[in-house]
């Protein structure tokens, strides 16, 4: 697919600006009505989903040219998918998120590159992660746990930690606790250790679409070598890559893919995990974009041509993402109180970290996170809980920057706490 393949989608934009807002039926206040961080922060229409589509069409029709300023607008976007959800409330014939991906591919193809993203790509190529860390250190997060590694014996479940959890020492405890509790609950779980590599999704999102293929092939090789029937990840970005980007690009891992919250939620329901310890806390839950609306599995492409005739079941509306399992886990914790923010589920506000924004435009990432933290604080919650290491990272940094009292947890940390593990 290329930008020109999206021309009809772009030309269909009716400039209603729905993409800037959460779906209007869910607007509950003046303060938390906005949906698009980019448009909210920078205001020019070009920063909205609609504006980016119009820019794409303009360039495609040679009315304007791609340059560094335009590329800057294209990349000042977390690819959070809020615009797509709000657009598809009304439109059957526009796939806005795919347009945004193709705009980035065009930037790369035409040589309008972001330095920080190039560094991420170099790191991915050299060290199999975008964080500039050594590949040799990849498996250190699991040291001492005695988990079987692929190449050893076959396992039922392969656990993919993802780059952020593998290398962010502040967050490692979460995945260590998680795999331990799964193992203790009788799950035959293994890891890829130092052989684990990035899923490649971040390269695709940055516009280096072709680079994802190598990572995907490696991923498929590891899954096959593990003998696993289920692939579980704790990273929402990886989950999105497995559920959407791989199948969209014809890549099939051949196994069931679950986010950790789906597996654990299922086990709690089956009574295989029984949280007993009190977690006396008032918390709110932040839906990670790539687990929620962007985590919706790829719907086989509509082959009927005119998307005006496309049935709803082919639309990536975002409604079938992973929303309830993390909430079910929270609700299963004794003593905890879950209060919802105004913008939740598929119309959630982004944490700010996605799409390469955290690396290239950290001030914008922090601003976006700050907006969410204000929303969390407005609920009266003392902690914001989420289910993605990227969200946890950017929120913790933003809390520190602002001197806020809000605590930030991954939902698995709270579960471990209830089980006495942390």
């Amino acid at each position, binding site marked *: 697919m290329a930008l020109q393949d999206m021309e*009809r989608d772009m*030309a*269909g*934009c*009716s*400039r*209603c*600006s*729905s993409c800037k*807002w959460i*779906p*209007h*039926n*869910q*607007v*509950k*206040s*003046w303060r938390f*009505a906005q949906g698009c961080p980019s448009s909210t922060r*920078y*205001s*020019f*229409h*070009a920063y909205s989903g*609609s*504006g980016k589509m*119009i*820019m794409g*069409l*303009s*360039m495609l029709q040679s*009315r*304007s*040219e*791609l*340059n560094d*300023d*335009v590329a800057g*607008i294209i990349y000042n976007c977390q690819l959070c998918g809020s615009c797509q*959800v709000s657009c598809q*409330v*009304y*439109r*059957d*014939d526009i796939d806005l998120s795919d347009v945004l991906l193709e705009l980035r591919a065009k930037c790369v193809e035409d040589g309008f590159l972001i330095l920080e993203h190039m560094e991420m790509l170099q790191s991915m190529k050299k060290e199999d992660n975008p964080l500039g860390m050594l590949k040799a250190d990849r498996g250190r997060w699991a040291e001492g746990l005695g988990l079987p590694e692929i190449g050893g014996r076959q396992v039922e479940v392969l656990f993919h930690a993802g780059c952020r959890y593998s290398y962010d020492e502040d967050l490692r405890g979460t995945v260590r606790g998680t795999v331990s509790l799964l193992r203790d609950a009788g799950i035959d779980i293994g890891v890829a250790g130092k052989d684990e590599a990035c899923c490649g999704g971040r390269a695709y999102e940055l516009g280096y679409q072709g680079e994802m293929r190598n990572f995907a092939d490696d991923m498929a090789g590891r899954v096959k070598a593990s003998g696993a029937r289920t692939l579980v990840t704790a990273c929402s970005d990886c989950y999105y890559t497995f559920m959407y980007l791989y199948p969209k690009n014809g890549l099939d891992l051949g196994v069931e893919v679950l986010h950790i919250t789906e597996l654990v939620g299922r086990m709690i329901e089956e009574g295989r995990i029984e949280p007993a310890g009190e977690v006396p806390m008032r918390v709110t839950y932040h839906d990670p974009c790539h687990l929620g609306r962007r985590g919706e599995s790829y719907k086989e492409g509509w082959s009927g041509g005119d998307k*005006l*005739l496309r*049935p709803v079941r082919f639309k990536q509306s975002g*409604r079938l993402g992973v929303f309830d399992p993390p909430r079910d886990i929270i609700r299963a914790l004794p003593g905890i109180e879950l209060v919802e923010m105004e913008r939740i589920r*598929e*119309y959630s506000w982004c944490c700010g970290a996605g799409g390469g924004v955290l690396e290239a435009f950290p001030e914008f990432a922090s601003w976006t996170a700050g907006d969410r933290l204000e929303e969390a604080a407005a609920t009266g919650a003392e902690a914001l809980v989420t289910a993605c290491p990227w969200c946890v990272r950017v929120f913790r940094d933003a809390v520190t920057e602002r001197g806020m009292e809000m605590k930030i947890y991954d939902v698995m940390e709270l579960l471990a706490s209830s089980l006495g593990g942390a």
Partner: protein
Amino acid sequence: MITDAAYRELQETLGAENVSREPAVLDGYTWQPFTDILGLPDSWCRYRPAAVVLPGSTEEVQEVVRICGRHGLQFKAMSTGWGAWNAMGGENTVQIDLKRMNRILEIDEKNMYAVVEPCAVCSQLQAEAMKKGLNCHIIGAGCGSSPLASATSLCGYGWSGLTTSYSARNVLGVEWVLPDGEVLRIGTPGQDAGWFNGDGPGPSLRGAMRGFMGACGGLGVFTRCAVKLFPWPGPEEPQVEGLLNDVTAEVPDTHAMFLIAFPDLQRWADAAYSVADAEIGYMMCKNAIGALVATMMPRGLKELTRFAVFKDILKTLRYQFQFLVCARTPREFAYQKAVLREIVEECEGICLDVSKLPGLHDAFWWGFVRAAMPPLIFRMGGTFGTSYGALEGFDHPAYQSQEGARLKSQYTETGRLMDDLADNSWGGIYEGSTGFGHQEELYVYDPRDSAQLEAAEDYLAGTLVDTAAKKLGPGLGFAGGAIVAEIFGPLIGDYHEWLRKIKGAFDPDNVSDPAFYVSPDPEKLIAEEMANRPGMAQSLLSVMGEEDTP
């Protein structure tokens, strides 16, 4: 083109991050829906702004318009900026995007008004107003629109017009940056007496400010205004899940939605008058059956319209209203329902209690109260247009809807426009017992198909000619640019000359882009229109009997 000197001044005033002349950014303001009114082959409007600016305050707006004046630039302000009337009327025009001015400054519960900036939208205002037991008027474009823009600069009706009237009736005090940069506060804010009144002391300027259609950016910039709020007999914080057609909600026991349909247009209009006399109901609006089906299941309608028998079945429900009762008490609820049933019976209609239809009632209730449904009309064809819609005693709108459908059937039956069963008029009665109302005729097309766009322009021109020939009165087709005033002015009390005098008094240097208001130079305007859109211009000029006169 904007000179470097002018551009630099704008940057110094607003900060470089709030000014752009990047062509790709400017094209975000050049692309608009509804370009059939401009006779264009696609959604690119004719002129790209010379620059776009994002002022954050009234003072910054003042500076921007003064800079434009000093440098021989025109300016055009927009709020949410949805529609071809936001387009530039010529080269050398600066687009003032008011997105940063987005606050709700005050909600006065006691006096029932809100003071808003240009880019606060209706869904936000409604959400905040409801917390105080109030509601706002929302125009037909829906809750993503700006209450300030429709109240000060355009003409908009709404689903709840029965109780909240239409936009021009709801504007109170206004803060207005005149084309020379001076600030004029009309009504009570002009005397620092609050925002509760838009008139006086002394002669009211509300009429000069907006007239019937509004000046569409041709008379300066409106930076704040107060709009009326109305009692809301519903929950302060409605509990709603879902996004649109899937909505489930806690509908109060004293609220209910009805579909009422009548055997013919006469009895349909009679029912409207009776409802007005009885002063019942919260909302009474016709969404044509074709439009309803198209928005809920567009592919289904396409299938159904292939078969004459299905079309005929659907058409049996063409003379209908969606009717919402929102009462405060069970006793009032029972009374309103009883009166409604009596009126329907007298007019030989049928009354379908939608609250008995699980799955639809919640979505309809909240969809119409929040007015979030309008963009659904894009589902069928990609976009739509509208015409007719003069505000008159309700027999007249009924006749207009008949005319609109008659004309349109020639297009829908030949596939030139999307088949919406031809009858796709929308609107209702306003202000209860006054008994006036409107019906605008929607038409649906795909703007990506230049043939359909051309057909839309052709149909629109036809409706305007029809309007003139049958003296149907000014409606929404009158938002078609300054040329419309020149054509219809002589037929309607020379209103165009009055507009020109107002324009001359407030904007003698013509700094505020008049493309959708009135031209200071009508001969030049007509010549340009003949060159730019000969099809539409010829049709319109035929109204004057001057087909050959440029």
